[in-house]
């Protein structure tokens, strides 16, 4: 009798402890997700995604921490050895962070690989290791002001346009507006990444395949830069500051330029800020020889290497980037395109075919925005030279030569 009692007691005790343990374990896991703050609508959508994840996984709690000055904040967290479990990784930052060993490898962890665009997965592969699945992406395309094209009696741009068509149209569209202010044909930001499509279209490249050699100092590069700078020197294009704007989208929205080459982040901005603007989108023009290229800017969800809940972290990442998570973002129709191919159609519906299609069309042939560690010096050298070239104080060929020299120096480091 006594024995039986003891046994029951033990069984009950064991049950209680294991039950409490399970309950405790369910409550215990708290993940931190760090990112930068975007528009309110986008932040809300992320919160909705996270809520859905928590509802489906009662044992996991997710704290979302969206910070301003993201790069410095997260770098300090890395350096202090206290990183968030899951965080945004811009494709341009991936080499730095992978090299520093703060990113967990995604090999064997990422589900639904076939769901994602090849070019995006490639942007998050470094030295043969896939690190993280894409969160969203943006692609550069050509925006044009329909009213200005109509007024000038020009046909709207098509994907078959070449550099010559772009130049000819920019020439015709340059003039003054009703208030006597200058209107330029095209806005040409003085940035390396805005010029890169022209380099790739011309058949040039910055580095060879394995990032071991600098291939920038080429005739293709000189041709591409002479074309880009030439339009500015001839007064038919200019940087945003030449038309009182902070960036290309603003210049385009204010009607101070007839064409711009922004990414799909511009859609929401233009629709919200300039609802009366009559505009369209098409793919970037080709090189006269037929070369086609654009840039893709993308962000992924990285998982910290120093992580006490790696499995739960990957579960969250796979949910956010999977078909279901993607669809939740796609339905909202923000500027950014959701990562899963299946969600692209939903996104197109939500944002409007007329605006979205031109951007999405570039996905298959887009180049990633990613260079080796320390390439910031190369960009700065190029941008600085480009600004001088716009002013007529430097020659495009010298800018190419200087930039290539710095790139070689950085690679040799």
């Amino acid at each position, binding site marked *: 009798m006594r024995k039986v009692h003891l046994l029951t007691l033990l069984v009950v005790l064991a049950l209680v402890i294991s039950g409490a343990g399970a309950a405790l374990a369910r409550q215990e896991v708290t993940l931190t997700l760090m990112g930068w703050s975007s528009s309110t609508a986008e932040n809300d959508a992320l919160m909705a995604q996270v809520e859905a994840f928590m509802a489906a996984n009662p044992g996991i709690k997710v704290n979302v921490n969206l910070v301003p000055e993201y*790069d*410095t904040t997260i*770098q300090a967290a*890395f*350096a*202090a*050895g206290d990183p968030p479990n899951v965080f945004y990784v811009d494709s341009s930052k991936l080499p*730095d*962070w992978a*090299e*520093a*060993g*703060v990113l967990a490898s995604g090999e064997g962890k990422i589900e639904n690989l076939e769901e994602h665009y090849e070019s995006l997965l490639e942007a998050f592969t470094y030295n043969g290791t896939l690190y993280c699945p894409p969160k969203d992406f943006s692609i550069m395309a050509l925006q044009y002001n329909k009213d200005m094209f109509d007024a000038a009696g020009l046909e709207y741009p098509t994907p078959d346009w070449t550099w010559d068509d772009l130049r000819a149209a920019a020439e015709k569209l340059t003039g003054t507006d009703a208030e*006597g*202010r*200058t209107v330029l044909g095209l806005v040409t930001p*003085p940035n390396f990444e805005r010029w890169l499509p022209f380099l790739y279209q011309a058949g040039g490249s910055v580095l060879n395949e394995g990032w071991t050699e600098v291939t920038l100092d080429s005739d293709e590069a000189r041709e591409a830069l002479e074309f880009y700078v030439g339009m500015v020197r001839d007064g038919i294009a200019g*940087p945003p*500051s*030449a*038309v*009182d704007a902070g960036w290309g989208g603003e210049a385009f929205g204010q009607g101070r330029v007839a064409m711009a080459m922004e990414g799909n982040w511009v859609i929401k901005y233009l629709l919200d800020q300039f609802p009366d603007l009559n505009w369209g989108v098409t793919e970037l023009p080709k090189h006269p020889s037929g070369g086609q290229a654009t840039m893709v800017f993308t962000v992924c969800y990285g998982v910290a290497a*120093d992580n006490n809940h790696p499995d739960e972290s990957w579960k969250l990442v796979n949910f956010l980037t999977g078909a279901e998570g993607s669809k939740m973002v796609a339905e909202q129709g923000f500027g950014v395109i959701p990562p899963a191919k299946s969600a692209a159609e939903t996104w197109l519906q939500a944002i409007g075919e007329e605006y979205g299609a031109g951007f999405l069309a570039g996905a298959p042939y887009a180049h990633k925005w990613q260079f080796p*560690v*320390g390439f*910031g*010096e190369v960009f*700065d*050298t190029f*941008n*600085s*030279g480009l*600004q*001088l070239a716009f*002013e007529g*104080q430097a020659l495009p060929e010298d800018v190419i030569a200087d930039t290539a020299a*710095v790139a070689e*120096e*950085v690679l040799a480091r």
Partner: protein
Amino acid sequence: MSEATRVMPKKRITTMAAKKRQEAIAGYLFMTPALIIFLVFLIIPIGAAIYLSLTDWNGITPVFDKGAFSFVGLDNYSDLLRGYHTDDAGEIVKATTRQKDFFIALKNTTYYVLGVVPTQTILALILAVILNQRWLKARGFFRTAFYFPSITSSVVISIIFMWMFTRGGLVNTTIQALFSGYDNNQFVNWLDDPRGVLHILLEQFGVSRTSVGDWASNRVFGLTLWEWISGPSITMSTIMILNTWTTIGTMMVIFLAALQNIPGSVYEAAAIDGANAWQIFRRITVPLLRPTTFFVVTLGLIGCFQIFDQVYVISSGGPAKTTYTIAYMVYLNGFDRSAMGLAAATAILLFIIIFVFTLLQRTIVKERANI
């Protein structure tokens, strides 16, 4: 009585000593919070910065991890300072980009300091003297108004200045209203013009890169002599105007306090001797303010050499690297280029520069005081 006198002093001495010790302990206890803050937020970080400047830490890998960085000696410093030289094999090594960037930053910062420090000191002194006049009505209002920019967030002010100085902004339209010849097409692009003001000035006298001869192509620390004499760019000048305006208030308040400390009898004596207003200002006010002027100039030097936030907000180092400053390079190296060791070395060099300038200025002021 005798017993008491024998015992009393002995007892007193012990209490005195105990009291002294007690007081000392209390004193240190009172200082502890300040000392801890001083140690944790100043001494340790400075020590860490010096140590890190001798490593190749990338600023990302957790700093206490094994293998997070390796010791590289003075490599970071030679990267920044050692230019065109011949290596052990006798081959000529050109200036690296890191070195060029550092000297571009040094050049820009020097022009910035040369422009801002004298301007803000002189203007602050003039303002203070005017505000010190008894005949001036509403002095309190003016004092507040002039001091206001100093207590406003520099980021907010920078953004407002950006709006004012855009191509079609308030500044250009005001100039246009005043001078009808200044039309739309020649608007100065304040925020995006890399041309140096000295270059522009020289051009007015027909002096250009091609007309000065070959000496201008000689390179000193990676930059040509012609580049060295560019002066601040238009964009840097805009930032200089902004910063002069914001700091004038603080300097003015310091001058005002010093002015009110000059006894009225000195002025009376000067007036009786027949000195006019200018003579009183030149021979009484300025010499008596010398310690304050030293303080203001030192404060200005330190603040100006550390110029960062306005550059970060307004120009991000552009156009064409003309607003790179040393403090901005610290940020760029540490956070944009993943080279925290190099950033630490840059910061140490900045500290040395400021230290040397302050010492130099101290000796100058002392020598002048002795004359």
